[in-house]
C-alpha cells in the first residue's frame, strides 16, 4: 500500500462559502472528530498538501486562487468539494458573482453534499479520497517506470 494513504495532508480553502462548511472542516481537526487519527494534518500550504478541501463556490476573485493552489500541489493529489456551494453553487447559484461549483474550474474527485456538510460526511469524503490517491499514485509510478 502506498504510504500516501496513511499520511494525507490537507489544505483547505474557503472559496466563497458562508463559513458553515468551513468551520465544519476545521471542526474535524478538533478533539471530537480528530482526523489526525488518519495521519491527516492541516498544512495550510499547497506545496505540502495531498488533499485539497474546497468549500464554497467559484466567484470572480477566487478563480485564480483556487487554480493556483491546485497547481502548486505536487502530484498525486485529490480535490474534495464540500457542501452544496462547492458542488453546484448551492443556494447562491443564482447570484451574479457565483460561477457555480468547483468542478467548473478544477477536476473534483469527491463530492460531499450537505449544507452544511456534517463533519462525519467530511471524514467520509476524505477517506474516500484516499482510495483515489492510491490509484493516482500507482498511475504515477507506472508512468515513471515507462
Amino acid at each position, binding site marked *: 500500500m502506498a504510504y500516501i494513504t496513511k499520511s494525507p495532508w490537507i489544505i483547505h480553502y474557503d472559496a466563497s462559502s458562508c463559513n458553515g462548511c468551513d468551520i465544519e472542516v476545521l471542526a474535524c481537526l478538533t478533539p471530537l472528530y480528530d482526523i489526525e487519527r488518519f495521519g491527516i494534518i492541516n498544512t495550510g500550504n499547497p506545496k505540502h498538501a495531498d488533499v485539497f478541501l474546497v468549500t464554497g463556490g467559484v466567484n470572480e476573485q477566487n478563480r485564480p486562487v483556487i487554480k493556483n493552489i491546485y497547481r502548486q500541489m505536487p502530484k498525486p493529489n485529490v480535490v474534495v468539494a464540500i457542501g452544496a456551494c462547492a*458542488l*453546484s453553487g448551492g443556494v447562491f447559484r443564482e447570484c451574479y458573482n457565483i460561477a457555480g461549483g468547483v468542478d467548473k474550474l478544477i477536476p473534483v474527485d469527491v*463530492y460531499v*453534499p450537505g449544507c452544511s456538510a456534517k463533519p462525519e460526511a467530511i471524514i*467520509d469524503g476524505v477517506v474516500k479520497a484516499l482510495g483515489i490517491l492510491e490509484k493516482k499514485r500507482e498511475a504515477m509510478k507506472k508512468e515513471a517506470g515507462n
Partner: protein
Amino acid sequence: MGKITFTMSKRILKSLASGPATLRYPHEPAKRYEASRGHIEINIDDCIYCGLCSKNCPADAIEVSKDDRTWEIDRFRCIICNSCVEACPKDCLSTSNVYLEPVFSGPLKDRSVGPEPEPEVKEE
C-alpha cells in the same frame, strides 16, 4: 510579565486523565439527533405533483413533473432547509436524519417515479 505561569497545566492533566473526547467515527456510528437534518425523502405514493415544494425551494433543487409523474431532487443543490417539507400539502416529504454519503462524480439526482394513478382519480 516576569513570572511564567502554566495556567494550562490543570486542563492538560485533566485531558490526560479523562482520555480523549473523540468520537471514533467511522468505527463508532456518527452522531445523530432526531431533529438532525440529513437529507430529504419522499413518499412518492402520496405526491400529487402540485409543485409547491419546488416553488418554495430556495435552491431550486426540486423538479416536479405532473405529466411524467416524477419528482426529482438535485442532491448537490439541496441545502436541506426543510422548506419543501413545510410547504407540501400532502406531507409526503420528510427530512431524514441520515446524511448523504460523499460520491465520486456529480451531479447527483434522485428521481422518484410515482405509481400509475389510480383509475378513480382518472375518472374525475
